[in-house]
């Protein structure tokens, strides 16, 4: 019985067999799509400061008494349509999330591959660096990055760079996970005989890494990336809560929650509850999907 074929799991078939995967990915997809399409589907533009009026402020959702049909989920203290603000805010959150994940995954994978494959001092330096960064919580790293960025950027343009700073802050913290995992996986793969065979076939280090090792270390990267997307969105929310995230003029979900949080006792519950629900739903569905993906891509789990 030793010859269990290590077939790559048929992810597609597993997907169709799992209601958890289908529902969570559907919810995530709907949220992501509606965020992407915000300019076309949102009833109002929450970034256009001149387009909303204080006179419309704090209108409750339509189904409540005093609701206004123009504002499905009500308006915030500025008269901004909550639904539109959520759609646009999700766009900002997802932009930060996806970009941070893309950068950290790319950098982390590269570092992990190189560290695992080359070893030696490069490996030691990269891994110690990862240790230090890993031990410093995202919040501190982000405060650090945004602090340094503030020092380096001209004051007048900081608003424009807020997204960039956030992305960088989160990415700097998260590449370490990829690097560690990929390094470990690379060590395993590099010791396998097919790498030796490739070397005997005349391939150089670069091509061995790109052609042979990279495809074989990608599945954990995909899993981490999915889960980190959720974490990045959450980190963005926390940073915005601490006031070093997105400004009120370009609110992300976190900014909306921070602003709404001030109205927690005021009875204007919809300005905080809807963004918070959206955030939890988004993070939850992505997390669920990531969970499933990890199980599905893990050959041991079946």
């Amino acid at each position: 019985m030793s010859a269990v074929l290590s077939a790559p799991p048929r992810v597609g078939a597993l997907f169709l067999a799992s209601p958890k995967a289908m529902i969570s990915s559907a919810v995530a997809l709907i949220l992501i799509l509606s965020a992407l399409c915000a300019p076309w589907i949102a009833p109002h533009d929450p970034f256009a400061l001149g387009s909303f009026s204080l006179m419309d402020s704090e209108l409750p959702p339509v189904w409540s008494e005093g609701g206004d049909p123009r504002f499905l989920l009500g308006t915030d203290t500025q008269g901004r349509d909550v639904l539109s603000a959520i759609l646009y805010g999700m766009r900002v959150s997802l932009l930060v999330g996806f970009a941070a994940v893309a950068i950290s995954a790319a950098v982390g994978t590269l570092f992990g591959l190189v560290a695992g494959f080359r070893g030696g001092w490069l490996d030691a330096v990269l891994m110690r660096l990862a240790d230090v960064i890993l031990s410093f919580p995202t919040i501190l790293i982000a405060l650090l990055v945004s602090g340094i960025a503030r020092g380096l950027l001209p004051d007048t343009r900081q608003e424009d760079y807020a997204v960039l700073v956030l992305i960088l802050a989160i990415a700097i913290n998260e590449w370490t996970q990829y690097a560690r995992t990929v390094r470990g996986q690379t060590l395993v793969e590099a010791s396998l005989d097919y790498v030796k065979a490739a070397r005997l076939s005349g391939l150089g280090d670069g091509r061995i890494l790109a052609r042979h090792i990279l495809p074989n270390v990608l599945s954990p990267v995909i899993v981490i990336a999915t889960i980190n997307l959720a974490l990045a969105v959450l980190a963005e929310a926390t940073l915005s809560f601490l006031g070093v995230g997105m400004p009120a003029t370009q609110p992300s979900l976190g900014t909306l929650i921070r602003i709404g949080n001030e109205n927690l006792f005021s009875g204007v519950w919809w300005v905080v509850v809807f963004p918070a629900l959206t955030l939890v739903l988004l993070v939850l569905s992505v997390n669920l999907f990531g969970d499933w993906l990890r199980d599905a891509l893990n050959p041991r789990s079946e």
Partner: protein
Amino acid sequence: MTRTRLALTSAALALAAGAASAETLRWANAGDVLTLDPYAHTESFTSSFLHHIYEPLVRRDAELKFEPALATAWEVVEPTRVRFTLREGVVFHDGSAFNADDVVASIARLIHPDARARGNLSSVSGAEKVSDTVVDLVLKAPDPLLLNKLSGVFIMDAEWLAANGATQPGNTTTGVVTYASDHANGTGPFKLESRQPDALTVLVANQAWWDAPAGNITRIAFTPIGSDATRVSALLSGEVDVITPAPLQDAQRLEAADGVTPLQNPSLRTIMLGMPHTDTLNADPDADANPVQDVRVREALWRAIDMDAIKTKIMRGNARIAGSIIAPQIAGYEAGTDVKPAYDPDAAQALLEEAGFGDGFTMGLDCPNDRYINDEEICLAIAGMWTRIGVAVDLTTQTKGNHFPKVDRGETDAYMIGWATLPAMDGFSPLNALLATRSDDWGGNNPNGYSNPRMDELAVAASMEVDETKRIAMIREAMAIAREEIAYIPLHQQPLSWAVRDGVQVIQFPDNYFRAWHYTVNGS
């Protein structure tokens, strides 16, 4: 081996549920007391708190008029020498008697170069003891605001300072730490019982106080609670008796809740927008001119702001719309200059066209998001209103720690600033800091180039005019010029917003001082 000391802090006991006696006031404020050393800070909340422990020579009464405190009488002997007769029979909390030596030592300690608060008494060059109960203050120049300043100068105990090596103030640079920063010995109505920074500071009534308290508080348990939601929760759950401030947006909820009441009153702090009077705007440095230099543009910007909407929607009706940069209680105020042009976006647009900027322009607006009440929301609303008359607004909102330095470096166009004229409560303060042309000694908060020679003359003259009538006239003239030229766009006086448990009577003084000896607590 260190001997382990096991002691239940009695201060903590005060907080224990049910243990609070009828006269205990449990008070939560947004921030902690910075230091117990009265000369080591410039924050008005800390002054307000320390006023319970320490007292000035002259204090303000319930109407904020001057009344004798540690000094019973004063007279100007020469223009630069003022003689104070001290109250007899006053003792410090540690039992030592109060006399002229204490005043001399205190003044010397305050004007020492290391004292953070030395600017509060910059016109005084020293104090001289005449007798045990008489002391002279020697001035560099005649100072019409001496009493205003002295009302914020707390007197410390010379013997106590000497005994604890605290005669000189602490110095951050050289690392000198003073005993007075976490110990206190004053003459005030309350004594310090214990202090745990950021957690709990307990004061108990000073039975030996020379004055009789108007209220019945015998103990104050003070806790800082930074998070608004937590502070309100603490009041709602009955863990504290009074919270300062209470978020305006929670007023409705607090009103509806059983057993608590929100309190609002206008304060002295005027919120205004600083204007760019420079040759170019930071938002558009390549343009030939700065449209805002034209007074018609400034008027247009003002007229475009719907203050009524901001008052009702954002301030929940709790603000006093302002036309002047000083509040009515401030010396130098004149109703005639406190006139806001009516909200009229059409007129505003017409004014812009008249000035030649009918197509609009781009301008920056900078605001703090954690300094004034609803500062960020107000700025968002104003940015929207300006956008609607064709002025594209580049809005930046950030924490006060970044906002104010940026303002000070002159890197903003329009910016939000609040001015309460504390501790002087006098119109000279904005004249000096906001309106005079910037130089080493004048216009410290006028970074954006507002300059008017007449204003500068008035500032210099008013600083030395001891005739109160003439001086007030000068300040009124300055305020009139400021209004006419729209040097700043005043918005409103923001409210004081507190909330109390039922059975607690407090007075909200316009200077936002907490004076607990006027307050009462009924055991509910």
